[in-house]
């Protein structure tokens, strides 16, 4: 069976999942699980925990599918938000300063993508990457670290050896600029 990847195909799948169709959930799983697993792994850096959370994520998707509103969010954003939130909750359970020591066998392009990738990046992804790269390097790093690792301000501040309030204002200013840039 072909894996549904277009936004419309994914939306249609969500409708069937909301109606209790397990084969639709399987198709959604086939289309999205490798991306969501990458999200969970990146935040948790622990395969067993990430698998555990990933399982919870799909059970949550099954239970909440009736609340998905295609007019307000894309399926990919909706499911990856659930994956990030569940992973971050799990990370927070380790303590406020917890962050994962990144495992080495994960192939994750953490740095800004190369020129080729920038050219290839289309639509929203390309615009976001462009806008992120317009931020000063430090702010960009902090925002990327926060997003990919799901760590608290406190943890970032400690790692960067910068005062908490300073880190907070970098991020807030950076997010405001990001919004302005995306609106252009």
């Amino acid at each position: 069976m072909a894996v549904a990847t277009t936004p419309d195909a994914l939306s249609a799948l969500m409708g069937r999942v909301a109606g209790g169709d397990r084969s639709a959930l399987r198709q959604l799983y086939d289309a999205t699980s490798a991306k969501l697993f990458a999200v969970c792994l990146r935040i948790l850096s622990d395969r067993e925990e990430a698998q555990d959370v990933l399982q919870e994520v799909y059970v949550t998707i099954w239970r909440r599918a009736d609340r998905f509103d295609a007019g307000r969010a894309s399926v990919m954003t909706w499911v990856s938000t659930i994956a990030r939130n569940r992973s971050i909750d799990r990370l927070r359970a380790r303590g406020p300063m917890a962050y994962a020591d990144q495992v080495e066998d994960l192939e994750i392009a953490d740095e800004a993508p190369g020129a080729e990738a920038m050219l290839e990046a289309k639509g929203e992804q390309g615009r976001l990457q462009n806008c992120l790269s317009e931020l000063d390097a430090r702010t960009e790093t902090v925002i990327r670290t926060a997003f990919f690792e799901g760590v608290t301000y406190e943890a970032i501040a400690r790692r960067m050896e910068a005062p908490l309030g300073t880190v907070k204002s970098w991020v807030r200013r950076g997010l405001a600029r990001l919004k302005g840039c995306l609106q252009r």
Partner: protein
Amino acid sequence: MSEAPELSEAEALAAEHALGVLTSAERRDAELRVARDPEFAALVEAWAERLAPMADQLAPVAPPPSVWAAVLRSLPANDNLAVRRGLRFWRGATAASLTLAAASFALAVFVGSRPPLTVQPPPPGQLLDASLVSQSGQPVPLFVAAYDPVRKALIVTSLVTANTDPAHVHELWVIPADGKPRPLGIIQPGKTQAMPMPDRYVASLAEGSALAVSVEPPGGSPKVDVPTGPITAVGKLAKI
């Protein structure tokens, strides 16, 4: 890049929540706010949508097959339909005498204070929420609810306009896995209220339980533990 205008306090918080930098206590508060403040919820959603493309940079990693097997094992039945059918059964014959049109009505009903909560070691609870959507016509959210298992309180927001039907009230019910409704109290139209939950209902407020709102005569359902009026909205509790 030119200096961008500062984000409002609400939007900055929404962006921080979407980014994931908040502590667990701050996350809980933000989730509660999402559940009761649709404008804030929309800000969080918009920020999630803005930031989401970053995840495209992560190289996909195929999970082992054991994960899907575990998902299948823990799937509950999708019981929305079953809940509606069950409620139709529970509704008494008096339902016919009440108008269903009244998703809107008004009566400031005082929600009496509940017996004091006994202090127990709080479970490492996670918030549950539910969006209760209309049962006729287009599914429109009429009520949103969030249950905080640590404080044992249900926070309910009525999105229904006040002052339109003084002859009826909205009564909230929880229907757990056994299918039997338990009355939780009267909901005031257009307001947000925190309803402390008595211990005997705490176990019912679990993931997968349904919340339902029935239209009842002032004072609530005349029958004990059974809604008599039409069910105007239903939703399921799920972990946030």
